[in-house]
């Protein structure tokens, strides 16, 4: 489990506390990297834990950071809320180097939070966690009636979809007309 502290987006984040290490310490000292979300809170995460994320793993491989450089340059994920990133980091730490169990009961029960978590996990390319999340999403409608499914998953009616499509077309038309007018203005 990682701990966090309020940081800034500056190149020199405050020293975060480290995640507890297992009793049998590896012979080669483990390297750590730093990530922060929208709230700028920096999380120190081991390379082993970050291996769950194909995106971050790829970034680490490509950048070839030293620990010092990594500390000075946390990976910024401005599109992920701080509490969601915390959940992701916690999950990666909990499942570091372990086979992933078939179920995960620690996912958020609040649907809004789960939605943000799914988006974050998909962005960070954490395959196993995404699988859990998708199962959890499917579980939401277990035994529900069609009305309840529509409500929980916010499925618009055909009329609502058609109205939204019309509106989008109208907006696109207006934008295209605006761009044409601007281009004509530039030409003058």
């Amino acid at each position, binding site marked *: 489990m990682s701990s966090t502290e309020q940081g800034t987006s500056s190149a020199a984040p405050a020293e975060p506390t480290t995640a507890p290490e297992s009793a049998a310490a590896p012979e080669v000292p483990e390297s750590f990297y730093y990530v922060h979300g929208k709230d700028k809170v920096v999380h120190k995460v081991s390379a082993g834990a970050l291996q769950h994320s194909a995106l971050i793993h790829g970034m680490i491989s490509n950048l070839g950071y030293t620990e010092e450089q990594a500390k000075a340059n946390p990976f910024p994920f401005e599109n992920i809320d701080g509490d969601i990133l915390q959940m992701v980091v916690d999950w990666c730490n909990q499942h570091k180097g372990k086979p992933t169990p078939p179920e995960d009961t620690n996912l958020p029960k*609040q*649907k*809004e939070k*789960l*939605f943000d978590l*799914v*988006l974050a996990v*998909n962005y960070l390319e954490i395959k196993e966690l*995404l*699988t859990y999340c*998708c*199962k959890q*999403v*499917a579980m*939401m*409608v*277990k*035994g*529900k*009636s*069609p*009305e309840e*499914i*529509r*409500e*929980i*998953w*916010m*499925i*618009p*009616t*055909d009329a609502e*979809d058609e109205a939204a499509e019309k509106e989008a077309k109208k907006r696109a038309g207006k934008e295209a007309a605006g761009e044409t007018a601007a281009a004509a203005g530039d030409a003058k």
Partner: protein
Amino acid sequence: MSVHEPEMSLLQNFGQLGIQRKSPKNRFPLLKLPKVVLLECIENLDVLEIILLTLLSKRAKTIAKLIRWNPLDIRLTTDSRPQIELGTPINPCNRWFIKYDKKQESSRNLYFLSRQLGPEVFRSLLLKLDGNVIEEFKKMVEHICEVLRSPISDIRISDKSLIDWIINFQPTIRYVSIDDKVITTSEKLNHVLKNLKVTEYFRLGSIPSYTTFEYTKPIPSRSIIINDASWLSLLAILDGNNSIIRLIGSKLTPTDINTILKEWQMGTKLQNLEYLEFTTATLLDSDQWRRRVFNDLNRTEGDENHGRPTTVKIHDEYTYTLPWAHLVGNLIRGDGTIGTIGMYEEWKHDKMNLRQLRFYLQVWSRQA
């Protein structure tokens, strides 16, 4: 008619239009997920939930159709409570049912039932509807076949309106069973025989007797079972490639049967035959009848039937135990295959003095 009218109709039955929305915090905007994630979420749904989701909107249906679902085994029964049964060969322990019923006053429109018997899990969706249940049933079947991209494998037809529907919707099908008195005219019977291709098992229930109607073309199904089979000619049997033939009320004469047996023994016709059984009425006594049937046949008698099976496989899930009969001889084909003949006089018709005879030919081989 709009192509989505059926879905709209189903939705109206579920009373889904104009629902009250809850606070957004308790909801999950599924369709706003990236497509790959959205599809993975939908893939985790149970079959019944997929069906309900895809009835909610055109968009939900289009998205679900992008998934390559494992093929389903779809079985339909349409008696007093029409039912759709769904299964998957990948997980044969799970079966799903959609059952229809007339709506009673103050009853709920829809509810789920779940039952577990050992390793088998049965999930049912019960729909109570006003109006024409059969029409709603048809729309639902079409919807399921379209979304889950699976054909109907088995249908038991108890309602006349389903005949034209199945011929139009899916004219080739593995198992078909048409109940008694569903087909009432020779035109309809002819239409069914010409337009519905049943590949595995075809059972036709009793129909009014047609003295003038005769069907001479083979019925291309592995197994055929026909009640009131007076219309099926000798030619239809001889030219067919059926393995199982059971005809009740056949009008085949002893001479016709003699022809069948000779052709089978020569190996020129009915090469795939495993079992032929029919009941027929005759004015002849059983000795006269037998003499005509076995005329000029190379028949052996005796206790040569050790190892003869007592059952035949009508189809994958139906094994038929042979009826009791007097064994009246064996025919041996050139390739060593044995045709055992059984006969039984069932009862005597008082008024016409007709004898009801049951006859069978069982084809089998002695194990090496």
